[in-house]
């Protein structure tokens, strides 16, 4: 039975505590009170108090696993949460059986490398037919602020008091950032001499050069943007750095149209294949 398992665990915990109490060397003051405390604890086993903490401990363990699971499921870790409730029901409202309550919530946690702190107010009005809950104020603080794309998005979310959009877009933004980081890292590892990441793996730019042909460089700028509706979209652009002589020889204007061709290629091959083909083209061209 469940209660037996719980009892077994409680006994194990008690034994550990008792063992610790035995091992500790006798010293004045603190240690005696500690010993006395564990002594008290051990005798609590026979009183009602012990029953309560037995249940609490097992229930606590279960709840903690639920939180860990939710954190894995959503990718969002909530570390602190507090709430204050203020009853705004006037006597007039009570007569009409309307209840008005203002809740102030404070929430903080992180989604991967981005930590957030939220404060929002929720106004709940309950009348006989329905309950309406409205977020009347929202303030968001985020770190790190090096992702400049996020500050505009944050003010928009605050303006709209759109809490869910905030978390949704945050999730997709982080997902894209991680994907960009992984992709850049992979190319850097595969073509260490050709690929150049100016700010390390978290940079938004990837440079492609060929050491045997200095002066030529292709720079891929991969930005992650959040639009008005909270949609997260990658935006890739190609910048070319080419010596003047080469430009003069380029009769067909290949370099001029490169950025446009890049966009087309993206649409056809997708991001990774496009980047890889660019790296290979610069590589093989130079070796000819």
């Amino acid at each position: 039975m469940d209660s037996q398992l719980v009892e077994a665990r409680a006994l194990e915990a008690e034994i550990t505590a008792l063992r610790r109490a035995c091992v500790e060397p006798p010293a004045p003051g603190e240690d005696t009170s500690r010993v006395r405390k564990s002594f008290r604890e051990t005798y609590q086993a026979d009183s009602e108090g012990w029953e309560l903490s037995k249940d609490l401990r097992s229930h606590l363990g279960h709840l903690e696993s639920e939180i860990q699971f939710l954190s894995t499921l959503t990718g969002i870790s909530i570390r602190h949460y507090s709430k204050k409730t203020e009853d705004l029901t006037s006597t007039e409202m009570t007569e009409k059986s309307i209840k008005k309550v203002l809740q102030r919530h404070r929430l903080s946690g992180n989604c991967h490398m981005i930590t957030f702190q939220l404060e929002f107010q929720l106004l709940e009005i309950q009348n006989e037919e329905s309950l309406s809950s409205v977020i009347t104020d929202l303030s968001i603080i985020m770190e790190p602020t090096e992702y400049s794309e996020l500050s505009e998005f944050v003010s928009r979310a605050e303006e709209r008091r759109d809490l869910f959009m905030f978390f949704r877009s945050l999730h997709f933004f982080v997902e894209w950032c991680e994907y960009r980081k992984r992709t850049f890292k992979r190319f850097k590892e595969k073509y260490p001499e050709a690929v150049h990441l100016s700010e390390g793996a978290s940079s938004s730019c990837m440079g492609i050069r060929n050491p045997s042909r200095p002066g030529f460089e292709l720079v891929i700028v991969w930005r992650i943007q959040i639009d008005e509706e909270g949609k997260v979209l990658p935006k890739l652009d190609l910048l070319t750095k080419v010596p003047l002589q080469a430009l003069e020889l380029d009769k067909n204007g290949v370099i001029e149209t490169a950025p446009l061709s890049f966009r087309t290629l993206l649409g056809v091959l997708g991001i990774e294949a496009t980047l890889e083909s660019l790296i290979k083209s610069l590589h093989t061209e130079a070796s000819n």
Partner: protein
Amino acid sequence: MELANTLSQDGESRGGVLAHLERLETQVSRSRKKMEEPQSAQAEESALGTRIHELRRLRDKLRAEVKQHQASVKASTTNVEPDQTLEITEQESLKRKWENVKAILQAYRFTGISGKLTSRGVCVCISTAFEGNLLDSYFVDLVMRKPLQIHHHSIPVFIPLEEISAKYLQTNIQHFLFTLCEYLNAYSGRKYQADRLQSDFEAFLAGPLQRNSLCNLLSFTYKAEPEGQSFPFCARLLYKDLTTTLPTDVTVTYQGTDALSTTQEEQRAAHENLFFTKPLHQVFTSFARKGDKLDMSLVS
């Protein structure tokens, strides 16, 4: 970091979540097994009973040792009165922890995605809102199995759940949930706008609001001034992108047979633009406000 693994593309998210579910399932099934299989339960029970017996003996032995230890300590030191007000008993700290943990679990609903563990797996609850108004919630009951399955759900039939789950459920649960979130929130928002138009601005409508269940095709005839001399316009809003709450196609046409004057044409074009950029009920709120302004000018 553990969390980082969930975002890799080759099914590791599934591994992370599934592995976790598996661990929990074994925990739960261990305690449930006894109820389902009485024979092996009895054997397990007696094994457990023996263990408890042994533990009790060990505990009693240790208690005696501690008592001795304490007696020798007492003899060698001066009496120190424990400050009971400073000590937090184990029970109190446990209770505090429990309350904190319970609060955090509740807080998850504010992310839009929350869930409860079930015997099968997990029941995920997706909340929706529009302009700060909390709207309907929907649930998806997932069965932890390979492949992951949806046991049952309350997602409306016109939301492309099968399409979304075919794309993401097996490979990236987070993406599956947040995409579903997108669709449901957009639907909730469109529905809210249509409902508000019908309830708050009935006076402006010259006929019933025609809408489909997905609320992505709306058709209505309206007057910008309910009692004024403005002409009725016919509006048709299409929301091709099911993840947005603003229309992708808007056509405002004139109902009557006469040609439109320049001002009327300007009005028509302006209205079209308004429907593109503002939520539906807000467009009508601005019509109502303009109407108020006109009244004011008549008075003064």
